C-alpha cells in the first residue's frame, strides 16, 4: 500500500527530473522551450472553452430536470434481470456521460456501503476501469477541430459497456 502511494507521489517529480536533467545534459534551452510550449496551452484551453460549455450545459439540463434519474429508475429493473446489482446501475449509466457526476456517485456508494463491501469494491473497479467517453470526445476532437467523427462515439460507448460488464463479472468472481 505505502509502496503505491509513494510511487504516485514520486512519479511526476521524477518525470520532471528526468526531462530537465536530459535537457541540461544535451545543452538544450529548457526554459525557453517550456515557455514556447506553454503558450500553446493557452490557445488550446481557449479553443476548448465553447466545446466544454456546450457539452456541460446540455448534460446538466438533463440531470437537473430529473429526466436522467427517471430514466435510470425505469431501466434499473431491466438491467437487474441480467445480473447487474441495482445499486450500481446509476453509476454505470452516468460514467460515460459525466466524470464529475460519476466520481460523486462512486464516493457516495463507497460511503454508504463501505469501501470493503461488494458494492464499494465494484464501484471502485468501475470508476477506475472506464473513462468519460463524452468528455474525452469533446476535448480531444474539439481541441483539434474534428467535426466529422465517424464511428468514434459508437466505438467509445460500446467499449464502456464492455468495461462495465467486465467489472461486474470480475468483481463477482474475485470478491463475490
Amino acid at each position: 500500500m505505502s509502496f503505491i502511494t509513494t510511487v504516485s507521489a514520486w512519479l511526476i517529480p521524477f518525470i520532471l527530473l528526468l526531462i530537465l536533467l536530459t535537457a541540461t545534459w544535451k545543452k538544450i534551452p529548457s526554459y525557453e522551450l517550456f515557455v514556447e510550449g506553454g503558450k500553446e496551452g493557452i490557445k488550446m484551453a481557449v479553443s476548448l472553452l465553447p466545446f466544454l460549455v456546450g457539452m456541460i450545459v446540455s448534460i446538466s439540463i438533463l440531470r437537473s430536470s430529473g429526466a436522467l434519474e427517471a430514466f435510470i429508475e425505469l431501466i434499473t429493473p431491466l438491467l437487474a434481470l441480467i445480473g447487474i446489482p441495482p445499486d450500481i446501475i446509476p453509476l454505470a449509466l452516468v460514467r460515460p456521460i459525466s466524470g464529475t457526476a460519476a466520481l460523486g456517485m462512486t464516493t457516495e456508494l463507497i460511503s454508504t456501503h463501505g469501501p470493503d463491501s461488494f458494492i464499494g469494491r465494484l464501484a471502485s473497479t468501475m470508476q477506475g476501469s472506464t473513462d468519460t467517453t463524452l468528455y474525452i470526445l469533446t476535448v480531444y476532437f474539439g481541441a483539434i477541430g474534428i467535426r466529422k467523427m465517424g464511428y468514434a462515439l459508437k466505438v467509445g460507448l460500446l467499449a464502456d459497456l464492455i468495461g462495465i460488464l467486465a467489472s461486474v463479472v470480475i468483481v463477482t468472481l474475485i470478491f463475490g
Partner: protein
Amino acid sequence: MVNLIWAAMAIIGILYAMFNGTMDDVNKAIFTSAEDAVSLSITLISTLVFWLGMMRIAEKAGILNGLAKLFRPIVLKIFPDIPSDHPAIGYILSNFTANMFGLGNAATPMGIKAMEQMKELSGGSDRASRSMITFLAMNTSSLTIIPTTVIAIRMQYDSMAPTEIVGTTIIATVISTISALIIDRIFYYRSIRRN
C-alpha cells in the same frame, strides 16, 4: 451523432422539466453549469501550459523519440496508419503512460498533442482518421493501472485494504481496452467495405 446526442440531452431535459415542475432547477443549472465549464477550462489552462511546456522540452531533448523507439513495434501494430518515425508515436506513448498511472491531468495535453499530430498526417482534414478513432477508443476504455483517485477515496472512508481493487481494475481495464481495439477494427473494416 454528437449533434443529435447533444441536442437530445437538452431537449429531453427541458420537456421533462415542463411536466415535472423542475423548470426552476433547469433554469439555475443552465447558468451555473456554464460557469462550471468556464472554471474547468481555466483549471485546464494550468495543466495544459505546464505539461505542454514540459513536453516541448522532452521532445527537443529526444526523450519522446527514445520512448517511441522502445515501443515502436507494438504501437505500429495498433496504429498501422502512422509512419514508423512520426512524432505522433512519442505523444501517443506519453499519453498512455500518464493514463496508466492515473495522471489524468498530464494525459489530456499529451493526448491533444497526439491528436494534433495525427491530424497533420491526415492532411488537416476535419474528418476523424482511423488512427484518431483508435486512439480515442483506447482512451475512453481507460488504461489505468493505478487508479489513484479511487484509492484516495477508499482511504478516506477507512478501507481495510484501499488498494485491493487494483487487481480487479487492471483486469477490467485490459478486457475493456482489448475489446475497444477489436470493436474499433470491426467498425473500421465495415466502413471501408461500405465505401
